[in-house]
């Protein structure tokens, strides 16, 4: 079991990256 201070930032960063990727894809699709 990973310590809390590792688990929380890891998942938060993953969530932010997924959101960023979606924002990028939406922006690209708008300029296609």
């Amino acid at each position: 079991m990973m310590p809390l201070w590792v688990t929380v930032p890891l998942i938060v960063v993953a969530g932010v990256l997924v959101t960023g990727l979606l924002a990028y894809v939406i922006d690209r699709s708008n300029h296609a």
Partner: protein
Amino acid sequence: MIDFLSNTSHIHLLLNHVPTTAFTVALALFVIALFTGSETLKKTGFAMFFVIAAVSIATYTSGSAAEAWLRGAGTASALPAHVLSDVIREHEDAALWATVLMAVTGFFSWLALWQSKTVRKLPSWSVPLVLVLALLSFAAMSRTAYLGGHINHVEIRPDVVAVHKACEAILDEATKRPGSIPDAPEGCPWQSAVDEVAKATGTPPPHTSTARALGDFVIGHTWMWPTLETLHFVGLSLLFTTVLIVNLRLLGMIKVVPYAAVYQLLPIGMLGFAINLVTGMLFFVGIPSQYNANPVFYWKIVFVLLAGLNTTYFMLADDAWRARAGQSAPPRARVAAASAIFIWLAVLYCGHMLPFIGNAF
């Protein structure tokens, strides 16, 4: 009126017609739009899907509150005799999936509306995707409504109806030929059928509820709540920053930037809202009792609904687009912008005050 509004069962019974009946109308309009090629009707369909998705959030949360209302308060709280807990759990599970599908439909409908203002032609996948999602949502919501009806209407529950019909057949036979059936019943009240079904099934194993399993997962892992809180804060930051930039521009700040430019940022705000919807729903299924008897949570949901309507204005009206570089926005767009900032601040305030004015934590 206050009595009516504080009765959460009333609210749920009112709201549950929106994702079912209103959604059927929206779906019909959307299909007609596809056949006739009417752009206005298509946009109406998208907008209705989006607004109904927002109302679905309130419908889901009010359902949990309706259950709490039905059980009553205190340690001796219990469901009425004809209501089985398992029937509620089955309805809740169906509602969870239906609400998720509806939210995804709402997101892509909003995206299509947003894009229809910026591109000449929507991407080829946009309309088919929304249509498939809407059909899936319709099926899931119809099933949810069907199961929801079973909670208080014993006369439509298949197991109860079967027992009731069997009783009526015996009663009919005994009436036709008196004395032919010695222990014939004198009547067939529905409660007898409910009792018989309950007796026949004995104590059923607890229904494996997805919603409850999800809730247990949220509260059963120490990393879940802080992770969700942090993500909720990230979502809030994305959402509120976008709200401020777009609406402050309409109110007269950074006039050098045309509205068309800040409009491009809206999906970032919507993605922020999506993060908060997912994390918020997980908080809710984690500990529903923190929210379903919390007046501040009610207000939060009311403001989320108003925010949905406010967003629809920007998707449909063209007023704001008159704010080109260096130009002011027309008065109606400014009123919409000011109300957007106020509404989102109210959502933030209610969310933050859940434990302080309300009873969360």
